């Protein structure tokens, strides 16, 4: 077990999801989801495409609306109240598959925008914070470039820095390496591992099973909108219980 996986997880609840259900029209995407995430936990969510894993983490910061059940983030209940939603979003960072950097702003502006406008941080202070996090993801020299001038891996690291600048208590990753060339995946994963080792609460939808083994303290397998199995990574990979999990693991680890 690596250092990250051994780290103590507190018993303070960061996210609690209770009997959550979601439909797209008449299609039942998420069914009776129950999940409690403790502060400092690093959870990897995997499963076949269309199983609802992205939708699940997008529900946590209200990018998607859920129709039944309850979600509490940091003790704030997600409702249709816009004030609550904005508060939760500023506490929860999100990294997307396609980075979603703002192409009309420089890297530095991408990182300072939300602190300045949402947190009302003075510009100078926000820029210092941004440079701090850009150094952390090892691209401070790109601060004045535009996203279009960076490689995919660099863009994704900027996206992580942009989220961190809001000093979130929870980070959500939605397939952060799926749109990257193989040689760029490592630089992004390294950044995420470093983040995990510092004790950030992380929910990560990914197919990087090496990453799951190394940093996760819980792996969740979803299929057809339900949580099929969850366990510690060692157990999950070496001794899967459900047939569906076994099949999935044999397919992604088989080659």
């Amino acid at each position: 077990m690596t250092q990250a996986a051994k780290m103590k997880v507190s018993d303070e609840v960061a996210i609690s999801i209770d009997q959550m259900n979601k439909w797209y029209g008449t299609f039942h995407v998420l069914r009776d989801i129950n999940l409690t995430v403790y502060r400092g936990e690093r959870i990897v969510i995997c499963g076949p495409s269309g199983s609802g894993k992205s939708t699940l983490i997008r529900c946590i910061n209200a990018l998607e609306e859920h129709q039944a059940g309850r979600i509490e983030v940091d003790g704030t209940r997600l409702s249709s109240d816009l004030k609550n939603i904005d508060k939760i979003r500023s506490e929860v960072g999100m990294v997307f598959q396609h980075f979603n950097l703002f192409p009309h702003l420089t890297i530095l502006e991408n990182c300072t925008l939300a602190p300045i406008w949402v947190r009302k941080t003075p510009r100078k202070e926000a820029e210092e914070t941004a440079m701090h996090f850009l150094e952390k993801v090892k691209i401070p020299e790109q601060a004045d470039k535009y996203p279009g001038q960076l490689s995919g891996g660099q863009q994704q690291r900027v996206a992580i820095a942009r989220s961190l600048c809001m000093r979130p208590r929870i980070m959500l990753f939605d397939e952060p390496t799926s749109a990257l060339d193989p040689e760029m995946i490592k630089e992004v994963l390294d950044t995420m591992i470093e983040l995990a080792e510092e004790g950030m609460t992380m929910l990560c939808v990914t197919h990087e099973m090496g990453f799951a083994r190394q940093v996760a303290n819980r792996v969740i397998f979803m299929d057809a909108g339900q949580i099929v199995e969850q366990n510690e990574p060692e157990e999950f990979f070496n001794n899967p219980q459900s047939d569906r999990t076994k099949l999935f693991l044999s397919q992604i680890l088989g080659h």
Partner: protein
Amino acid sequence: MSDTHAQSVAFVRNTEIPPSLPPDTEGGVIKWVRENLFPNVLSGILTIVALYFIIRLSIFVVPWIWNGVWGADSLTNCREVLGGKTGACFSVITDRWHQLLFGAAYPRDLFFLSTMTGVPVADLVTPGGVRENTNFFQEFFFGYWRPVLAFVLLFVAIAPVLFSELPRKMLITTAIYPFAAFWLVWGGSLWVPVTILASLAIAYFAYSFVVNRSFFLGALSFLAVLILLLFDPIAMLINAAEFGRNSLAFLGWQRAENALPWVTVMEQNYPWLMNIFPLNAHVVEGLSTISSVSLASVPSRELGGFMLNMILGTVCVSLSLPLGILLALGRQSNLPLIKWVCVIFIEFIRGVPLITLLFVANVVLAYFLPPESNPDLIIRVMIMITLFASAYIAEVVRGGLAALPRGQYEAADSLGLEYAQAMRLIILPQALKISIPGIVNVAVGLFKDTTLVSIISMFDLVGLIRGPILASTDWNGVYWELFGFAALLFFVICYAISQYSQWLERKLQTGHR
């Protein structure tokens, strides 16, 4: 021995090949002609046909311009000077330039003109409009200094909007300009624009005081303060009632005399009801008693010529852009009421010809408004053109909004930005950038469409040419020169707008996608 490595697989170069000039056929005029004019048979034929037409056209146009007469005082006189030769009669422009630019009735500032030139006022006013004692520059810069200054200041005012490199403090000139220009063109007491400007400033102050709590409260206090300072609330109520009564009467309801006795009482107490939104006359009058700074007042019907096109163009473009953006955002709204109001508005306006709307402005609106109130025709026309253009701009902007990937909205949301912030900082800068060609297209079209007002008897550049100038005995029959001049003026402005937009597109290119 050959330099190629055909004989053997192993090859090492040990001599450099020096660069040499290309053959003559690969450079200079010959190459250009061959590549651009005669690359193949079809293009060659087309080149020859085009050359034929260019030469035919120049055979007519060149002597026409070259022989042009500049000094005559009528078409007959012009023909005598030409003596049967082909030639333009540009004298109509030198004779009537002030009408073409400022309208037939726009008054010269005789006092200023006389002061600057030393010609007594009596000698400046000659019968028949002939201005013998002054030259063009004196007339233009001293006689018409008010609209000319307003035109020059226009560039100072829009410069910081067009060029983001300029210091942001210059935007203050942009904010003041509409009021300055209004005062310069329409004249009257300086206190009118100053009161409006000051009221807006105070209302903005109130807004910025409250906006931190809630944007809605901020907007509300802005409006409340503005209405209190600027308008007379009682008079507004009366006018609203009057508007309602007229609308009912128009729809067939009989207006019951004495049904609303309080309105009559108020009407007698407020005889200065002039508009739907009457200016708070007490403030203006009060200030005027302290000090009266005023320019000779020019009624709207005396505005004309290219100046009228410029006024309509700038006012309507600058108003329809924000309105169009709001409509585009409204059309995307999640709130059904807002969405459907915007959709119906846009679709209705786009389905109706502009000329119909102008007729509505001219004739039909008068039925609905109180009989005493007579909002200027120019204001009614401005409203209609603005609404018309904003519907088109809304659709162009909607295209830009739709072209943005969903991820941009999600990224802005996930950072906790509010709707207004997300729109202003993330979505609109990108969507508007995509929409620049479309917006410029609408703006240029709108500017040219301002000539349609000539049909509802306003004397803009085209109206003046068709009306007073071509109808006069002196210049009846001078078409090419006059419409050529009009085309030139419009072309200069429209070409400048188009060049600016291309420059802006290049500047905003940040190398993405």
